[in-house]
């Protein structure tokens, strides 16, 4: 897992924000390229062979969501969104378009670096490399034998619960929107049935979390979706 020489493009119109983000990334040992507009950002992304893009949603020349779509058209490289609080719809649109994670302004450097590290790490990992057995906390998920156990004791799941768990685990560290999860687990005709998802997430928490009201693994991104944390 070598993310030491990663190349990161920062697309942000406020030069001061861009500066401190780049400084922080530099300090952490990564190489950065700056872009003040969406157009410039897309050019940089196409030419610099980046490992990650940090994208502000409020760009003056184009909608950030369109930039995400543009990049996704030719690359699966991780995209971290920067957005204002109380802009849930923008975040959801960007995530649905293929962005991987988001940071809400104002954010601290520590938070920024943690997200970037997680995304770079995720990108180095391939699904095959994960292997069939994943463990988190006291839970062991064996995808080859389709079993889940806590401290060696078997846990019982319904087909939907199991599918939901596997979907979450497969995208560990990444934010999945309600729509993405519903499409993946229930199918395209269920994308508006948010309450299904919420209830089944509740079931998973009851079975997997020590305290379902204070979950450690299946985290809620309020108004946006869920994030599974190993």
């Amino acid at each position, binding site marked *: 897992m070598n993310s030491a020489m990663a190349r990161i493009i920062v697309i942000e119109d*406020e030069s*001061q*924000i861009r500066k*401190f*983000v780049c*400084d*922080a990334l530099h*300090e952490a040992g990564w190489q950065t390229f700056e872009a003040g507009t969406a157009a410039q950002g897309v050019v940089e992304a196409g030419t610099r062979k980046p490992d990650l893009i940090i994208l502000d949603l*409020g760009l003056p020349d184009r909608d950030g969501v369109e930039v995400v779509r543009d990049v996704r058209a030719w690359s699966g490289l991780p995209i971290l969104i920067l957005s*204002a*609080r*109380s802009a*849930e719809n923008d975040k959801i649109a960007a995530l649905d378009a293929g962005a991987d994670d988001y940071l809400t*302004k*104002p*954010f*601290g*450097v*520590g938070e*920024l670096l943690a997200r970037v590290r997680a995304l770079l790490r995720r990108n180095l990992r391939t699904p095959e490399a994960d292997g069939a057995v994943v463990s988190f906390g006291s839970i062991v998920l064996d995808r080859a034998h*389709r*079993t*889940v*156990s806590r401290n060696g004791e*078997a*846990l*019982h*799941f*319904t*087909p*939907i*619960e*199991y599918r939901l768990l596997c979907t979450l685990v497969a995208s560990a560290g990444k934010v999945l929107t309600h729509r993405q999860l519903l499409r993946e687990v229930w199918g395209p005709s269920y994308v508006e049935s*948010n*309450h*299904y998802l*919420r*209830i089944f*997430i*509740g079931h998973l*928490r*009851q079975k997997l979390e020590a*305290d*379902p*009201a*204070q*979950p450690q693994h299946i*985290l*809620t*991104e*309020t*108004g946006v979706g869920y994030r599974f944390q190993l």
Partner: protein
Amino acid sequence: MLQPNHDQPALGHYALAALACTVTALIATPLRPYLDLVNIVMLFLLTVFLVSLRLGKQPAVLAAFLSVALFDFFFVPPRLTFAVADAQYLVTFIVMLAVALVTGQLTAGLRRQAEISTQEARRNIALYEMAKSLSGAMTLAHVIECSQDFLRDVIGVKSDLLLPGEQGELVSAGKHGVWYEAHVALMAYAEDRRTQRHPLTELDGVRYYTLHGSTRTRGVLVVSPLDGDIDALDADHALLEAVASLIAIALERLHYVEVAQAAQIDMASERLRSSILSALSHDLRTPLTILYGQADALALTKPPLPEKQQQAADAIREQSMRLCSLVENLLDMARLHAGQVKLRKEWQPLEEVVGAAIKLLERSLAGHMIKTALPPDLPLLEFDAVLIERVLCNLLENAIKYSPEPGTIEIKAKQVDTKVEVAVCDNGTGIPEARREKLFDMFVRGSAESPLPGVGLGLAICRAIVEAHGGEIRADDRPEGGSCFVFTLPVGNPPVIEAEAELPEVRV
């Protein structure tokens, strides 16, 4: 009045009729040797016909009798007396009189019909013109002017429009008042469209027409004849009703024009407010993001800063974070007040949003014990997760602020009838009873001179959000010390989710 009175023709008409008969007699006298008496009768009949055509019914009657008399006197032997030598002339007289009268009456009737049709046509044209100008009228004054002019010039009445005032009374809107009785006008105003057959006629000489709009009654039209002839007015009842409904339509249209304009102004000011808010929030957040980010970067510099500078960097970071949350609160309050917040209500378990709020405040909660007591059978609730998370965060932040470390903060919920009560309790200082209700007002704090930071917006935001969800929020004192902030959410009808069989393969 345009319509002349046919029942009483001017004396001049009689004189003309008499003159016409005399002239005929004078013209016929020299022709006597050449014409048979029968043909002279014809001349007289022609005269009666012409008289009836030009001068009307009664002069024609006069002409008929006069013709018979003149014929008898001047032409029937013995001449220059009314005596008749040959008795068969009596038949001539009777036939002549009968023919003269009948042709006279018929012709006069026809003429009258033609006159009435012309009148009607003229009034209809006037009515069309009024309808046209009413449909183009953009102000109430214009509607009143159009209708008053028409009613005065065409029907010969003075009129007034009575429109409902603010307290349900009727207010005269016209310039030239008509003397009317207020209670009758109110009765007319209350008339039902379906039951009303005739205009109300309480005070003699005044008629009240209700102005029925399609959605509601728009007012009352009061009319009174200029010449005091109330019967002629009642003869025009149908026309007046038509005028009343035209006025009602015009008034209704004006009303909707006003409504549309008000809506447009509302929309424009709403847009302005929302663009100001978003510009303001962008302009406030950007420097704060930079400030906080830079302070955080400074505090994390490697190698670490000397202790004093490190403390300064930490202080800048902490204060800028506080400033951020203050600005967020102000923006939230502004947005809630401007009605900019649209609830994105979804059915969901309360547990989830409680967990999210605790997670968000993880760092601030580090010094406190946090306990949750949510019954597993709690129904799904319909709420906006982001906003209720905000309520919980604000309440938790308050609890942290007002209870000493290591305190215990509890989040409890229970169903009470058709509501779910959610309580955030602390074992802090509690709140004096007198201040409890006021706490939820803007810029009000638990104690006026508190050393703790804050401006008293958090609870006001909570109340705005909870009330938008149809719930209530209150502060309770705990007997064991500390306070509980309790808010309610209505239960509603949660959707039913079918149970699902367990996955067979997973069973061990």
